[in-house]
């Protein structure tokens, strides 16, 4: 069989190659899909700015035993496409949104963000607390991962988040963790 198999390998190498490539590709895809974190096992963060270091995703996921993944999406507020991406990503599927104060003020929060119980310095719009200001200590510590501007930043929770009372309360816990973050 050895000699005939070797001869077959030479003659039918393309078929063997296709089998090898398909084995790797299809199983990688199948395992990836099967073990993909569910919506209640991940937190999606939208940051209005530039992300300096994506290792934050691992740091944050490691801080919560119930989370398997933290994903950051970002968009630069000075870019032309910001408004489009902000509406598309922040309001659809994000669990926590970090915005400069000016962007938060320019957003009609009632339609997009959850009202929150006061905890720390709150961001108000029309007398309702929709977010928490990021304290300067946390902003400084998180500055290792995020490129913050001079402005103050606000952490908000979109109403569309499934982790804000629908499936879990992870978004609130994550917000609390962000606001209290001091370790660089």
């Amino acid at each position: 069989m050895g000699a005939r198999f070797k001869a077959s390998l030479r003659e039918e190498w393309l078929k063997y190659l296709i089998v090898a490539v398909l084995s790797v590709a299809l199983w990688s895809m199948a395992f990836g899909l099967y073990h993909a974190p569910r919506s209640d096992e991940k937190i999606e963060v939208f940051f209005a700015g530039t992300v300096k270091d994506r290792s934050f995703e691992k740091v944050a996921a490691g801080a919560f035993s119930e989370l398997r993944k933290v994903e950051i999406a970002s968009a630069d507020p000075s870019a032309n496409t910001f408004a489009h991406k902000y509406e598309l990503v922040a309001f659809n599927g994000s669990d926590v949104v970090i915005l400069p104060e000016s962007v938060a003020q320019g957003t009609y929060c009632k339609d997009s963000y959850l009202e929150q119980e006061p905890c720390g310095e709150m961001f108000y719009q029309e007398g309702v607390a929709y977010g928490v200001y990021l304290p300067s200590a946390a902003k400084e510590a998180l500055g290792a991962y995020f490129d913050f501007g001079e402005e103050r930043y606000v952490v908000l929770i979109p109403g569309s988040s499934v982790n804000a009372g629908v499936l879990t309360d992870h978004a609130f816990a994550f917000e609390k963790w962000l606001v209290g973050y001091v370790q660089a």
Partner: protein
Amino acid sequence: MQVVEEKELSAASSRRKKLFAVYVALAAAFLAAVLLLFFFSKHDYAPYLVGNVLLTMGFGFYSVYFFTVRYFDLRKYEKYLERVLSAIPSKEYGVYLRSEGNVTKEGVVFEALLFRIRGDERQICSFKQGLPLSQGEEYLLESRAGVLVTYEVRDGRAL
């Protein structure tokens, strides 16, 4: 001496069916193994993924080899045998000259035997290789579709 027999056709057919049954059993075992590894895999699934990729490559390679060589060859042999057995037999005397090695016809390997028949050299093929033929000996040959079916020694005189 009989070289090709009717019962060889059914033997070849049952050999092919048996080979296919073994292949199906192997396929079922393979499927069970990969599904087991897949559904029992943990979140840290790298070893399970590697296991499934290796199993699939192994079975995939065997499948390519099986259908392009083993099963395919047996199927071709069976078809050729069927054609030979249904052909009109021709009997004639011929003097064995030599073997001309292996030849492949329609994917089937034969031994080409050279005979002198009525003054002309003619090649007759044989499914069996290494027949005990003596050079210079005259035989009564029965062939079908150019394939030797039976032979017997006419006499011991060397030509």
